[in-house]
């Protein structure tokens, strides 16, 4: 890849990116699957890993199974569906609680519940699959 930028690592996670006319400080952190950057008050998520995964997933498959995951560490307050149930788009399937707020997890489309991977009262981690729909 050719780029007009000269990049210097000036401290842990800190990069100076320069051209002849410009110099910017960019902060980068996180593993490839969860990469973040900061510049001048803006935050960016690096989506290349996700894009690669999406490209991989784009190959034809016999059935599309979709996992719903927790967006952050949270406690499972309520599991509203059981495997085999059919749900409509927008139906709340699980309620999480995090930071004193309830977070409903909704079905992104009409679907059938394939599996439930969490229990009420359980503390779940980000990106942990909670439920699978097909």
């Amino acid at each position, binding site marked *: 890849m050719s780029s007009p930028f000269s990049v210097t*690592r000036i401290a842990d996670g800190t990069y100076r*990116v320069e051209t002849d006319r410009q110099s*910017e400080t*960019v902060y*980068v952190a996180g593993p490839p699957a969860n990469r*973040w950057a900061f510049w001048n008050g803006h935050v960016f998520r690096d989506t290349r890993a996700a894009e690669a995964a999406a490209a991989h997933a784009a190959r034809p498959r016999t059935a599309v199974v979709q996992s719903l995951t927790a967006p952050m*560490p949270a406690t499972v307050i309520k599991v509203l569906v059981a495997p085999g149930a059919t749900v409509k788009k927008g139906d709340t399937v699980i309620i999480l609680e995090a*930071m004193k707020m309830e977070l409903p997890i909704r079905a992104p489309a009409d679907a059938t519940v394939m599996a439930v991977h969490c229990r009420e009262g359980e503390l779940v981690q980000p990106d942990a699959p909670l439920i699978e729909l097909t």
Partner: protein
Amino acid sequence: MIRRLLVANRGEIALRIIRACRELGIETVAVYSEADRRAPHVAAADRAVGIGPAAAAESYLSIPRILDAARASGADALHPGYGFLAENPAFAAACEQAGVIFVGPPSQVLAQMGSKIGARRLMQTAGVPVVPGETPEDQSDDELRRAVDRVGLPAVVKASAGGGGKGMRLVRRAEEIADAIQAARREAVAAFGDGTLYVERLVERPRHVEVQVFADGHGQVVHLFERECSVQRRHQKIIEESPSPALTPALREQMTGAAVQAARAAGYRNAGTIEFLIEGTGNDARFYFLEMNTRLQVEHPVTEQVTGVDLVRAQLVVASGEPLPWPQSALTQRGHAIEARIYAEDPSHGFMPQAGRLLLYREPRLPGVRIDSGVVEGGDVSIYYDPMIAKVIATGETRESATARLIAALRDYPILGIRTNVPLLLRILEHSRFQAGDIDTGFLDGEGAALAEALDIETPPWVRAALAADDEPSHQPPATSHQSLDAWDPWRQLRDWRG
């Protein structure tokens, strides 16, 4: 003087209190829940006592557990911070009974000011303006109409039992009164089974301005000027400043005078805040008592910066029985200070609270910028407690320079691993209405959505270049005190990308 103080709180305010104690030579005892075992406030205190599981109800909100910790550690005083038990009269009373100094007002003052009706009544007898309103004994249409006449237009007729906007009707013109009463009563009966109506003057485009007061046990009461807190999202303050751009000197004098009167009437002691709503501008402005906060406020640094005093130190001095360190005549308001609260939340996705590890967290170091925070790089933002992780307080000679400093600080404050409201704070501070000082409490609920939508920008090429450089597997781990330092060069030129 207090000798050993238990800090019944966590996060940035616990650190703030511990630091004030250190300067006064007071030993500190931290308390922590299981989730906070490794939190910065635990490391900062002279000693620390575990008080239970992560859930606040079983730890930071448990009166018996906190009192046990105070007894076990031999603390002779307790500072509640803000939130949690800070305004709980039963907690203050329990401290008083246990012989532990509660750094705050007496429990009966907490009880009285905690009741909205009690506080309103007290203010009225003290001659402090309250929003005109009444629940007529006689609920006939005629009497309700007369009540509307008394409170003045525009007015709101609403269910006395209610809340949440149900059974509420706005009356702008006299002709609308009859219909409004009928409609409100119908909805009130339907929603609450009680048709009793309350009539209140509508405060239009209100600003939220509060006055810091301080009283000692020797009859001295002073004010420390005002804080403007109109930038709110759903009643949650986000940006606070002092002086308020909305106050004329005459209005400031009236409001601070009313606040001192209010504190005197309440028999107040220690630091407190009288919140007011302001309607109108300039010489037409009117102010109304909203409520009293019987504790140190989150936004107290704004006052510290413009007055040059240390409010937490003064709290400890006054709680020890000593007189206030300053007479009113020694207190001045100089320059301008603005505070922005950093929340772990995602403004682009419905302000969803964020939790996780701080992969990178670097506080800016700028002259005139103070950061009160409770987190460190590598630490976790937990799901259990308030999502406010830091406060940035900028001080300058003028409102413009303080704002410029705050903007510079936020642009230089990388927080990675969780989303925060920093990008939104910047959009607010750069907004023409904010810069003109033309903000009422409805500003953010009105404009916030548009601001939040505009937050995501295209990833600029220099950011992509830095991400690509960070991908390179070549670079070595950063220095630590345990590795060979000679091999490590933090400034190593990675490569020239021009090639």
